[in-house]
């Protein structure tokens, strides 16, 4: 399955977000989320009770709940992107897991960088397996060399895709494999990670730039989808 097929396949899966709020804060959320496959419902809470919160359900199953303010903080750029690996707040990890398999229509660079970091961080904590990362331009890759240098110290087999390559490969001393001519793949910003064992840490991010410089894409922890995505690079 090509990356494009994966994006459209996931767009057809329905997920529900139920906003419980004493007021009409649901509109705000619909604007910020801008997705293809999330239905947003609103339920009134008694005025005296709780702050607004959000429940995510997937095919009728409860996936998670969090306060609306936590969710908005996560969604509203700039998303904080910690420089060191393994320092993402637990709160944010949960939000990534809640919103996986959601096709976002408009993600900006900051949000994608933050999501990439969550995936790179997951790989780094796992410490083994294989990771394939695609950058659309050399500058984007060069900005991430410190992260990839750290990943190179693990047992992970790392492959990096940079169209046209980089002038002085900053990772030449590392075991990282650089791919420079990749056809269709060059249009995508992607990270695919397979933990090489149980698959519990497998994850993927696939995004494509739209005309206005924003991105459309998704991230997933679904093993089948990650396996499909790997078929595209293998």
């Amino acid at each position, binding site marked *: 399955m090509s990356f494009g097929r994966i994006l459209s396949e996931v767009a057809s899966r329905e997920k529900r977000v139920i906003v*419980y709020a004493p007021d009409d804060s649901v509109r705000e959320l619909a604007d910020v989320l801008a997705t293809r496959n999330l239905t947003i419902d609103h339920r009134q809470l008694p005025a*005296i009770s*709780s702050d607004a919160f959000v429940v995510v359900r997937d095919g009728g199953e*409860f996936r998670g709940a*969090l*306060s609306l303010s936590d969710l908005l903080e996560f969604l509203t750029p700039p998303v904080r992107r910690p420089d060191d690996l393994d320092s993402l707040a637990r709160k944010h990890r949960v939000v990534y897991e809640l919103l996986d398999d959601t096709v976002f229509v408009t993600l900006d660079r900051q949000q994608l960088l933050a999501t990439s970091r969550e995936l790179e961080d997951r790989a780094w904590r796992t410490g083994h397996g294989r990771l394939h990362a695609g950058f659309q331009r050399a500058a984007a890759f060069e900005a991430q060399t410190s992260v990839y240098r750290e990943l190179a110290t693990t047992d992970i087999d790392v492959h990096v895709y940079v169209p046209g390559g980089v002038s002085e490969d900053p990772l030449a001393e590392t075991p990282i494999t650089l791919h420079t001519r990749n056809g269709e793949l060059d249009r995508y910003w992607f990270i695919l990670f397979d933990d090489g064992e149980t698959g519990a840490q497998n994850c993927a991010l696939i995004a494509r730039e739209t005309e206005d410089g924003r991105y459309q894409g998704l991230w997933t922890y679904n093993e089948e989808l990650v396996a499909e995505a790997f078929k595209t690079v293998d």
Partner: protein
Amino acid sequence: MTAQENRATGLEFPSGDSDIDYPPPDELFKALASSKRRRLLAALPAQSPMTLDELTDVLVGWQSTGDGPAGPDEWAKVKIELVHAHLPLLVDAGLVSCEDEEIASTEYPEPVEELVAFAGEYESAVTDR
């Protein structure tokens, strides 16, 4: 027939009216002696019943506004607590009815209504500080 008026609170308990079902005091105060049950009473609208799953969603979501995000494990735990502890207690006190998976609050006698409302307001006033 005269209304018995409590001098300290001004609550009115119509006397001699045997049609009104007052919850026994121990059961009533026990029902209010847990934050989950107070929240449950605050969230349950008298008119529209909720399913057990919806009620669990609300309690877990409400909890997440203070304790941070919650996942399916927490949800399952809260649902079990509801079924085995909180709901039976509230049903025994006559504050909640459960029929065919539908849960609703009953119509309370006025003093009980005020007490439940007070418990909710007290909770949010004291815990939001």
